[in-house]
């Protein structure tokens, strides 16, 4: 039985190729994006390029962050079904330090005025000026929120998320590898994991919301929705589940993970189905309530996207594909056990959840000056290459099957 994954040269070359494309896209995108559109004069600083960087930094970071959440959930819920794919989950979480690093880099660059994605970083908007020389750019709403976005407070929060999440990710990974080598007498480490997972989940429960306000919702600084945090979280979660499922299927196809039962794949399919539904539910409820009440401050979010800035053909497909596709294709039991179905649905909604992040970031930052062009595609591919490289590299570092886990036998004999 093939218990260690080898990161073949072929796979490595593919990752390098993707990263190469991304690198070219990086230069191309930055250089090409130098014309300042008239309506955004003064605060367009290669925004399309940077917004793309933000979309990808966030999307892939979200995958590994939600992966860490899902891993912790398995511990806390005493779940046994997924023990055989635990290493795959762990590999996905291993991108977290890189992803968080890139996100922090994006924020720091914004603070140093490399880009103008976050309007509230622009001090012109919240300084009132004097009575005889009032500041024409002064914006009352932004000034109101300013105390929340003050530099030290904002970065203290960001640093807090990054350090704590990263620390928990490293902790789970380290303990998992240790148990492989040294065993786990009386399951002491396992119970320690349960405890750590509970602490992480509570911390994550609060910070996943505040993070989404800080990093995404603040792009539309004049707009607020109480559901935004949970909605963003569900998007990250489903993207993460897709990644785990696709990786598992790919590994199985390549002759690894023989002990992963068809039932485990079936369960992963169910999770994909269920979380897609959760995401659609949250999306719909947020949309419906804002549409229904039609309060100007709130409805601007959707109005801008659908009417003003012309994102109609990215907003609606992102919702309908992400809702209907898994809903219809993964409803039957056989479909969830069919690799072809899982791969098609998975790839498709993976792309469309990326598009969902795109829809959150782009309209807020480049308004109508968007395109799905070379910059978007190359940067996505570049980030994908980086993500895959880190994940596969970490997958190769440890045996594919955990040892000494109390629920391993349950998972190996899973039959539903």
């Amino acid at each position, binding site marked *: 039985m093939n218990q260690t994954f080898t990161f073949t040269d072929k796979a490595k070359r593919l990752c390098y190729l993707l990263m190469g494309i991304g690198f070219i896209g990086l230069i191309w995108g930055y250089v090409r994006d130098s014309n300042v559109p008239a309506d955004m004069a003064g605060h367009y600083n290669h925004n399309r390029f940077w917004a793309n960087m933000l979309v990808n930094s966030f999307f892939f970071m979200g995958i590994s962050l939600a992966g860490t959440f899902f891993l912790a959930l398995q511990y806390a819920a005493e779940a046994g079904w997924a023990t055989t794919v635990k290493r795959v989950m762990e590999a996905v979480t291993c991108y977290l330090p890189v992803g968080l690093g890139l996100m922090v880099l994006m924020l720091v660059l914004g603070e140093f005025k490399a880009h103008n994605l976050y309007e509230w970083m622009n001090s012109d908007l919240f300084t009132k000026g004097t009575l005889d020389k009032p500041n024409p750019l002064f914006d009352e709403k932004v000034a109101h929120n300013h105390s929340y976005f003050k530099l030290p407070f904002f970065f203290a929060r960001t640093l807090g998320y990054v350090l704590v999440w990263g620390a928990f990710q490293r902790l789970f990974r380290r303990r998992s590898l240790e148990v492989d080598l040294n065993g786990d007498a009386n399951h002491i480490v396992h119970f320690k994991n349960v405890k750590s997972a509970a602490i992480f989940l509570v911390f994550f429960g609060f910070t996943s919301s505040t993070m989404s306000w800080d990093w995404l919702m603040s792009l539309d600084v004049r707009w607020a929705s109480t559901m935004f945090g949970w909605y963003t979280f569900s998007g990250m979660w489903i993207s993460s589940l897709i990644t785990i499922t696709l990786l598992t299927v790919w590994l199985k196809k390549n002759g690894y993970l023989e002990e992963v039962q068809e039932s485990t794949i079936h369960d992963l399919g169910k999770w994909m189905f269920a979380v897609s539904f959760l995401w659609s539910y949250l999306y*719909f409820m947020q*949309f*419906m309530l804002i*549409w*229904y009440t*039609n309060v100007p401050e709130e409805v601007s979010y959707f109005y801008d996207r659908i009417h003003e800035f012309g994102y109609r053909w990215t907003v609606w497909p992102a919702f309908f594909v992400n809702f209907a596709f898994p809903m219809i294709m993964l*409803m*039957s*039991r056989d479909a969830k056990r069919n690799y072809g179905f899982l791969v098609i649905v998975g790839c498709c909604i993976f792309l469309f959840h990326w598009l969902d992040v795109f829809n959150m970031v782009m309209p807020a930052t480049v308004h109508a000056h968007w395109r799905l062009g070379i910059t978007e595609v190359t940067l996505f591919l570049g980030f994908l290459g980086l993500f895959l490289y880190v994940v596969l590299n970490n997958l190769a570092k440890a045996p594919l099957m955990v040892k000494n886990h109390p629920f391993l036998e349950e998972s190996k004999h899973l039959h539903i």
Partner: protein
Amino acid sequence: MNKITLHGIYDDDQQLKEGAIKIVGMGIHVKEVFSPFPVHGIDPIIGVKRTRLAICAFIYGLTGMSLATWMMWYMMVTDWPTEIGGKPNFSYLLNVPAFIPITFESTVLCAAHGMAITFFLRSWLMPGVKAKNPDPRTTDNKFLMLLEINQGDQSKVEAALRETGASEIHVC
């Protein structure tokens, strides 16, 4: 040849399954199995096919969805369009977010009830129907295998049943 009916009674579901495998292996059809709880894995052995109730539920659900859509389209858009909350009901599509909740409820309503009714009809379960379990203990702790065999096979079958742990055998 004369057919006789045989009841093989087991105390344990695992033994029942082993017995069924053995009997089926002898080329004898297991007519029915009565048990106090679902014995997992017995169906393929005695040749019970996978149920298609889920497909029924899906179809009922689609029906419910279409009915609700039609109802709201007819009442709110066609028959008497009204302007409510600044949202004129000129077309179904413009107002569809407000129609989703009822469409969903109706889908679930029809799927759930349709499926339950189909189940009751297919298994013929309703008030006043006489129970068909031959031994009252099969709703408690006994597992009963009902066989219809040729008289000539009787001793062979009985031996197989006993061998696999049947506690009682009744010939009727």
